[in-house]
């Protein structure tokens, strides 16, 4: 085995850590993922790699670690081409955290997974042991190190995968959507861990607010080409540029800076600083007033909350217990009225998805469940699919047909509708989610945003009375997110939304139900929920992101005013 673990040399003066020249890459099916990429990355750079779904970001970072070899053009790591000994060196010094933590955890215990990298580095056993324990302690999983990965929650898996990378003590850290599907608490843990990282950082994310607190440089990819390579401040302060690349997230902050209250608050927070900010944005510390009032910069919650309408769903003392005896949730009492849009929020594992599963009828708990004032019995549960539709967190779970047309027609076909009605519903549903013309396309070949919309169409074609959406914005770029928001706004059905995305919750729900450890902590109109000063206690503290958002909005205003 090559022993290159400790002989890492920094690039010479004036030499880039990575130097890419005219790099292009085509997949086997002919799809061109990268075209003429010219990029230099220096030691210590904190780079945000952004772009729409399918822009080529993941393909690019796979080159930096030597997973993909360059087909045309050149790629130098520390002045040498990534092959032979330098390939081994690159793989040991450049750590990549992929989106799905299950891809990283292929051993039988977390300990073995974290030890895998250092062992491949050829380190002595005691050194490996020390590194593993240290890395797991940093991510707060030292008490679970001998657990099998499939026994961990998603957030824990994500942190374990991160520890597996960090145990290799990489000089370069590449992260692909590190915060997707994580609750705010887990996200904050990640943000803190990354801020402590002193090496070169390359982060792919659609969450510009998260990147804003972490990176100083932005590289924008579009259809496999680099469109911009400038500071993150420049990127976020040009709304037109953001919009051009489908990255404009400011639709979440409509009217934000026009609120006198928030403006006043912004003034007090601004301290007369210019809009320049430090490399890692560490001045974004939170005061208590920030935590309590920052949410007010958000757009006003949805209006037109339905009045006293008929109850669609009612749960009386409803509980669900898993086979191993743990409670999914306990003694839930709640009602959902017709036309209402309700958001379930809370930390990972709070019981939100389990409750949705019970409402949908795929899980049965104990207690009384009424749908349209009818008590749902076992046989009634079997028929709920005709009235309640659900779009799952991972759209791939829902798509299994060879064409979009068949996919959307699947549900109505099970309902026994006539071919004419089927055709009508397919056309309608695809048009509703802006996928007209996609009838013959293969669902697996669609982008993430398109797949999500197709999954929604597949449910809408069944004309459900209640639509449940589990983390609808996860992994979506801002353009797709905005489109999704628009689609949901115009849907005349009762909606139940499960999300960690407070901005989305604020913009798309009338009522917010906070769940914690299987219980309902509060059930408030969304506007009141965001006034609730106990958000922090509920691990739903989004103040940091709000402050980032506010700063960005001010920069955009300044640019628009020619300042």
């Amino acid at each position: 085995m090559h022993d290159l673990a400790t002989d890492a040399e920094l690039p010479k003066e004036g030499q880039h850590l990575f130097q890419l020249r005219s790099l292009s890459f085509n997949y086997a099916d002919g799809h061109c993922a990268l075209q003429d990429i010219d990029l230099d990355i220096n030691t210590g750079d904190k780079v945000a790699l952004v772009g729409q779904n399918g822009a080529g970001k993941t393909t690019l970072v796979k080159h930096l670690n030597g997973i993909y070899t360059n087909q045309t053009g050149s790629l130098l790591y520390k002045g040498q081409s990534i092959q032979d000994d330098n390939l081994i060196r690159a793989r040991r010094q450049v750590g990549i955290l992929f989106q799905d933590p299950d891809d990283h955890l292929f051993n039988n215990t977390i300990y073995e997974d974290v030890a895998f990298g250092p062992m491949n580095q050829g380190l002595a056993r005691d050194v490996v042991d020390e590194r593993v324990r240290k890395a797991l302690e940093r991510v707060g999983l030292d008490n679970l190190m001998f657990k099998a990965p499939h026994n961990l929650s998603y957030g824990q898996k994500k942190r374990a995968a991160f520890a597996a990378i960090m145990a290799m003590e990489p000089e370069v850290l590449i992260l692909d959507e590190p915060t997707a599907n994580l609750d705010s608490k887990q996200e904050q843990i990640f943000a803190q861990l990354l801020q402590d990282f002193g090496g070169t950082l390359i982060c792919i994310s659609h969450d510009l607010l998260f990147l804003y607190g972490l990176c100083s440089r932005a590289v924008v990819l579009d259809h496999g080409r680099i469109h911009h390579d400038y500071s993150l401040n420049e990127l976020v302060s040009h709304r037109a540029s953001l919009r051009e690349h489908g990255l404009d997230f400011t639709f979440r902050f409509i009217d934000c800076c026009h609120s006198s209250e928030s403006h006043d608050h912004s003034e007090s927070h601004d301290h007369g600083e210019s809009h320049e900010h430090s490399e890692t944005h560490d001045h974004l510390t939170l005061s208590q007033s920030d935590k309590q009032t920052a949410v007010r910069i958000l757009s006003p919650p949805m209006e037109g909350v339905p009045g006293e309408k008929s109850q669609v769903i009612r749960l009386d003392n409803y509980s669900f217990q898993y086979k191993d005896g743990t409670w999914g949730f306990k003694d839930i009492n709640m009602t959902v009225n017709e036309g209402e849009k309700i958001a379930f929020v809370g930390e990972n594992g709070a019981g939100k998805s389990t409750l949705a599963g019970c409402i949908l009828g795929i899980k049965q708990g104990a207690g009384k469940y009424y749908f349209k004032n009818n008590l749902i019995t076992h046989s009634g549960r079997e028929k709920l699919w005709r009235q309640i539709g659900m779009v799952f967190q991972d759209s791939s779970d829902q798509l299994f047909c060879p064409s979009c047309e068949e996919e959307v027609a699947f549900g109505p076909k099970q309902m026994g509708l006539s071919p004419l009605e089927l055709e009508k519903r397919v056309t309608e549903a695809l048009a509703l989610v802006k996928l007209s013309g996609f009838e013959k396309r293969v669902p697996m070949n669609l982008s993430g945003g398109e797949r999500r919309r197709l999954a929604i169409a597949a449910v809408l074609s069944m004309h459900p009375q209640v639509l449940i959406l589990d983390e609808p914005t996860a992994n979506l770029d801002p353009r797709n997110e905005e489109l999704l928001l628009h689609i949901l706004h115009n849907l005349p059905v009762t909606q139940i939304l499960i999300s960690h995305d407070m901005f989305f919750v604020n913009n798309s729900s009338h009522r917010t139900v906070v769940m914690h450890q299987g219980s309902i902590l509060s059930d408030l109109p969304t506007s009141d929920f965001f006034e609730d000063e106990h958000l922090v206690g509920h691990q739903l503290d989004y103040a940091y992101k709000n402050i980032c958002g506010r700063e960005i909005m001010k920069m955009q205003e300044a640019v628009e005013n020619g300042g």
Partner: protein
Amino acid sequence: MIDTAETIYVPFGGLILAAGLLLPIIVIIIRRSLKAARDRKAGHHHRHEHDWSVPVLDACSNLDSVFHRWDPRLKIFSLLVYCFLVAALTQIIWAFCALIFSLAAVKLAKIPFRNTKRRLMAMVGFLGMFLVIMPLTVPTQPGDLLLFFQPVPVPFNVRGFLLAILIILKAFAIALIMEPLLNTAPLPVTIQALRHLRIPDMICQMILLSHRYIFVFLNEANRMYTGMRVRGFRQKTNLATLHTMGNFLGMLFVSSFERTQRVYDAMLSRGYNGTFPVYTNFSARPKDWLFGIFWILLGTGLLFLDRTGTFIIW
């Protein structure tokens, strides 16, 4: 041939009697169904919430027993030899003895019988078919005893029935011995012991990764199937079901293939060069050798008695 077989015509009551012998099994099935129904009512279980879980191979590896302390290489070698010797048995009495020894080994390894029972129950459905099919299909030989349960016209060959019992006993004996073989050391240690026994590295890695990802794939299959059910899919005996299940399996294959590629990428990115790095060192003590020799002698003894003993039942 059938002329030289002994034939007994059993009156209709005999058929009832034979059915009565199956009564305990029927009672067990009914009791389980009732319990499941009670659980459903109490909300503890769901009819369509299939138990997709797979028993973890090395769930009891953290216990302490003579099997846990045994050198894994010798354990694998001697118990596998024992299994082959048991597989060669031809008489029910010795197969039954082998089953007793296997049960004793499970007890000695301190493995909870609940886990063992779960594995055995998984085999019951398949092996149970032997009891029904073999007596009716085994070719009749001279000296066979054929029972005709009137008015059923098909002969019930007792030799076929006993052959089925022999197969079941041997299958259970071998399946049970897999518990102390695989469940008393962490899987990576067992895999490394296999490497020491010159099993190709590729196979060892495949076992290791299969064990890890079977949970992930089953979870994916479960989620996808749930996605189909909430859109109204119910399995029926028709072409539409076949078409849908074909799509389901195809999609599962594609997503599994993609997952495999992503896992391989993740392994490469962490310096994987074709071999799993390991640090475990094995050292066999004299008592490890003795224990290994004991199991091989035990199997050999059973085979010897089987071939030369007088306990021939049929």
